[in-house]
């Protein structure tokens, strides 16, 4: 065997073996990683949204598969019926990239219970103030029937001063979540009842 072939064969063998090992590790530990991400990244947002410890609500999770993306939906129950949903949405076009937000929706009264930021990379002191309660509180009690908008576009949400790009991204993400829930409500409820049967 010539030297060149030997090099190619050895290197490919090593690379192949390494990819196999990595794939195995990913498949084996993937669900655990997802669980930990839920607990530490989404957990705090869910806790504030639902007012319950994260451990209680993290299990109440269904994933709706759409053509473009998978959307995680969390829910709580009041007397057997599903009462509130928390839908994760991407707020596109933030100042430092996309925002990941969670929109809480009360199904009975068809109003929002709040908006929480799961992760963002906005400027500290400006866009990062999206985490502050004074901004997020504006979402509470808004109707889910109509899209929301910033005041400069004739809506009710006051943008954070100096960070209208960030505020706009949060509003866009919310509207996406509202449309998603309106269009896929039956699908979400069906997945939740299937989850109930399984457990």
């Amino acid at each position: 065997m010539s030297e060149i072939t030997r090099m190619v064969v050895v290197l490919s063998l090593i690379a192949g073996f390494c990819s196999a090992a990595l794939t195995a590790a990913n498949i084996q530990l993937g669900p655990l990683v997802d669980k930990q991400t839920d607990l530490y990244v989404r957990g705090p947002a869910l806790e504030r949204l639902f007012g319950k410890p994260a451990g209680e609500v993290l299990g109440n999770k269904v994933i709706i598969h759409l053509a473009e993306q998978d959307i995680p939906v969390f829910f709580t129950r009041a007397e057997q019926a599903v009462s509130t949903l928390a839908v994760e949405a991407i707020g596109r076009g933030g100042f430092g990239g996309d925002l990941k937000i969670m929109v809480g929706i009360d199904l009975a009264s068809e109003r929002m219970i709040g908006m929480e930021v799961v992760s963002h990379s906005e400027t500290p002191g400006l866009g990062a103030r999206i985490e502050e309660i004074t901004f997020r509180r504006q979402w509470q009690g808004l109707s889910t029937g109509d899209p929301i908008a910033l005041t400069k576009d004739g809506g009710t949400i006051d943008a954070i001063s100096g960070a209208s790009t960030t505020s706009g991204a949060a509003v866009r993400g919310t509207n996406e979540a509202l449309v998603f829930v309106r269009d896929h409500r039956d699908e979400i409820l069906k997945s939740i009842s299937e989850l109930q049967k399984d457990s």
Partner: protein
Amino acid sequence: MAQKFTATLTAGLWKRIPPFRLVLGLCPSLAVTMSAENGMGMGLATAFVLILSNGAISSLRNIIPSKVRIASYIVIIATLVSIVEILMKAYFFPLSEQLGIYIPLIVVNCIVLGRAEGFASKNPPFISMVDGLSVGTGYAISLTLIGSVREILGAGSWFGMPVFGETFEPMAFLVSAPGAFVTIGTLLALQNLFSRWRGEKFIQG
């Protein structure tokens, strides 16, 4: 054989202790030792990678053609580091968030590649793994030590537990980047002074 075994096992703890004696792998030593816990986590992750990569590279040392050895080493090391990263995300999520980019950067840590090239490629698997264990343990101890000094003096706590009373005013600059240089420099100077006092021969400079 037995003599070589003991020599290899103890070398990493004093004679070759990283990062002080080897003065390799300084980047993570400076960057992640804000607290004792971070230092220990980083040190243990590196030690784990070091033991396994030394073992793997040493068992393949006669198969790998010397022209592509660095590429092969990097592939093996990168695989091990990715596995460590997945393991950390699955079991120690908050720690992996804190260490962030420095976990994937173990791939290019000079200690790991240095031991692979300098030791594992010339010695049989078992003794190479002993070398990895010894150097890795030395690195973990050093990082924990640096982290402890910075955390105790800079934040007034050790592994998150408060050590001084309420009245202690921490030297906050020690937990920021300049404090890392000062701490490592001081520890290195102390070690060299001690070696000189004992008349050891391997002092740098």
